[in-house]
């Protein structure tokens, strides 16, 4: 594979063909914040926290690094006044939903995000989609999915699948940056799994 030379924050970085800017940066030890990124999963481009400035052929633009391909001769700036301002706003928007999530709190400190900027609406889920995509792409079970769209969009376990597949898996639990996933699971378990209250399994194990 051919090597690509690009600049990130003034530093020469070597990337492999097919790498994203985010991957190139991380391989060089340059950190870019993300919420919806996971090495095992297809880039999603949902949280937009990994936004950076990219200078290419004389023009400068904002792009999210998790999907922007590492191209030769581009110059990436991972922090700037504008980038920081946008990250701060994204964090504030998410803190309205998950004010106590540790990942968000750490980032909030870094970017000066005010957790009280917006009225609290604790739904906990930040729609990073990690659980949904992990279950679909890695486990290939689709036991948890998104339902509805726009501001009504939410994650939901599909009881018919979850009652069979989730007992011994739960690999998505540690992926969740908030506690929303566990809550959704407990809810669907209580409402829809037969005899879960006694701990017996529906499949007869």
């Amino acid at each position: 594979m051919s090597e690509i030379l690009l600049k990130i924050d003034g530093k020469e970085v070597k990337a492999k063909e097919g790498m994203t800017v985010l991957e190139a940066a991380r391989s060089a030890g340059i950190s870019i914040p993300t919420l919806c990124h996971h090495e095992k999963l297809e880039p999603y481009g949902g949280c937009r926290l990994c936004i950076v400035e990219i200078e290419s052929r004389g023009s400068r633009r904002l792009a999210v690094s998790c999907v922007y391909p590492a191209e030769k001769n581009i110059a990436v700036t991972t922090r700037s006044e504008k980038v920081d301002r946008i990250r701060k706003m994204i964090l504030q928007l998410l803190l309205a939903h998950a004010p106590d999530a540790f990942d968000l709190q750490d980032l909030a400190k870094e970017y000066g995000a005010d957790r009280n900027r917006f009225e609290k609406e604790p739904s906990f889920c930040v729609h990073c989609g990690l659980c949904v995509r992990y279950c679909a792409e890695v486990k290939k079970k689709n036991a948890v999915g998104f339902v509805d769209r726009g501001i009504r969009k939410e994650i939901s376990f599909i009881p018919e699948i979850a009652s069979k597949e989730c007992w011994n898996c739960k690999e998505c639990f540690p992926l969740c940056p908030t506690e929303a996933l566990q809550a959704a699971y407990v809810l669907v378990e209580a409402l829809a799994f037969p005899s879960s209250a006694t701990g017996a399994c529906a499949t007869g194990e």
Partner: protein
Amino acid sequence: MARIKTPVELEELRKSILSTRDPNKPCITLCSGSACNASGSLEVAASIEEEIAKQGLGAEVDVRRTGCHGYCERGPIIVIHPEKICYFQIKPEDIPEIISQTIKEKKVIERLLYTDPATGEKIVYEHDIPFYKYQKRLVFGSNGSVDPKSIDDYLAIGGYSALAKVLSGMTPDAVLQEVKKANLRGRGGGGFPAGTKWEGSRNAPGEIKYVIVNADEGDPGAYMDRSLLEGNPHAVLEGLTIGAYAVGSHEGYIYVRQEYPLAVENVFTAIRQGEEYGLLGKDILGSGFDFKVIVHQGAGAFVCGESTALMTALEGRAGEPRPKYIRSNIVGLWGRPSVLNNVETWANVPLVINKGADWFTQYGTESSKGTKIFSLVGKITNTGLVEVPMGTPLKDIIYQIGGGIPGGKKFKAVQTGGPSGGCIPEELLDLPVGFDELTKAGSMMGSGGMIVMDEDTCMVDVARYFLDFLTDESCGKCVPCREGMRQMLKVLTRITKGKGKEGDIELLEELSETAQEAALCALGKSSPNPFLSTLKYFREEYEAHINQKRCPALSCKELIAFHIDPEKCQACTTCARKCPSDAIIGGKNLIHIVDQAKCTKCGTCFEVCPPRFRAVRKISGEPVPARIAEEARTITRKSKEK
């Protein structure tokens, strides 16, 4: 029907169709688009059929149910050929008279004619009516002369001759160059040059390529693509096939929303007919070129009008835009080069090919060529679909064609470009319509929605309305759009309710920046436009709402009150009788009073108060005057004193 095997055979068929049609034979065309069907066109059609049978005229008169004529305000419309006598707002009971008077006796029925509101004059012919007179209906005009369910009708007006021309003598590259030279720009929103898009796909690696029709029109109040697809589906198919030939594609898709049942029905019929005639399918017109078309019915998500979301939906997944920084004409549907253009763009292609780029570019501005169909709705006298050359001033569309604002109201703004577009104020009414001109004014062409607003429209509420629409229609994938709009809607709602705070405008601006810079797709990036454009031109309305708790348009319910002027009230009791919530303290010969605690601000009293009194007034930003003392309420009538 035997397949047509060569362009020569197509011309022979066309001649034989025309030879059976006597241009002097009376023909009744009835507009049967969705809008007119809703206003009774189906019943009118049944009545025509019945009456013709009753009067035994079956052999002497043709009846053609066509697509939308555009003048929906006055539908259903009947045009009687060959004279082109135009009758409006036809009811089934008008039919016997039309048949016996106009068809048999060649007499014009005065009462069904169009009356020019300016002169009071009756106008007989379509082309003399201002609504039509000032249009240039290059694309939409054929709607009135073909039955969309008849391929022969389309052939009779020269249909598929552009395809024959392309397949019999033009190389794919020549087609491409012609479209590029015509500078045909996408009519669906972005205005990207179609030729350049096609060229990208053509040059992209891969054997399999797709061409796609975007018929997922979703802007509130917009229905030009719907009417084209319903009224002239073959024009769209012909354009698509020409595009496929130019790009090197053998498979096309029509992504049409399920809520357009007539469009779906007519496009299925058209495809079946095209296949029967050999104008679609294998070896089209003996050229060796194969092309098939598949219809995909969308479930009606606005975001699926976005190109990558549409393709994701075509692949059978939830319609969410793709995050990739790569153009879909290179990597599109199933990862293959895919050209996506909207209905109107495809319908322009046969014209460009038949008449040439030089002819096409005579219409329009420097950067926007040809015509554009607009859906003219809102506070406008002539609601309907209008097609004008690019570069036509907004003013001409609204006043000459649209007939201005009804009810003697004042024009305030015109919203163009759909929910992600913007509002253009009165001082910019001379603006010529064009892709770049509208963008420069802070709005956009979009797919051609044009909503006219009068002085009673609150611009803050307009922004709130569109944001409400967009939060509902966002796919919800990225934070700046989903969460940003959620907060923007909250702030705008609170401003219209009189709870706006200092700093709200700045907060909205901050959220706008985040969406514009960081959202994933065009829908998200343009989502703040309704706010930004109204702020740009109507900032004082925002400030009045926030600082003075006043709605200058007297529209936001929470900020207005109805008050009866004691000096003017004549105790006619009309308002008290009509008030649905018993909020008017009335009484014989007693000055009426609005009980503010009971008032729901429905505005009924304001509307019913006789114009000679005009005693009810709307107030905003000032306290409601104190109630008149009980003893002062009695009215002593001057006339009785005498």
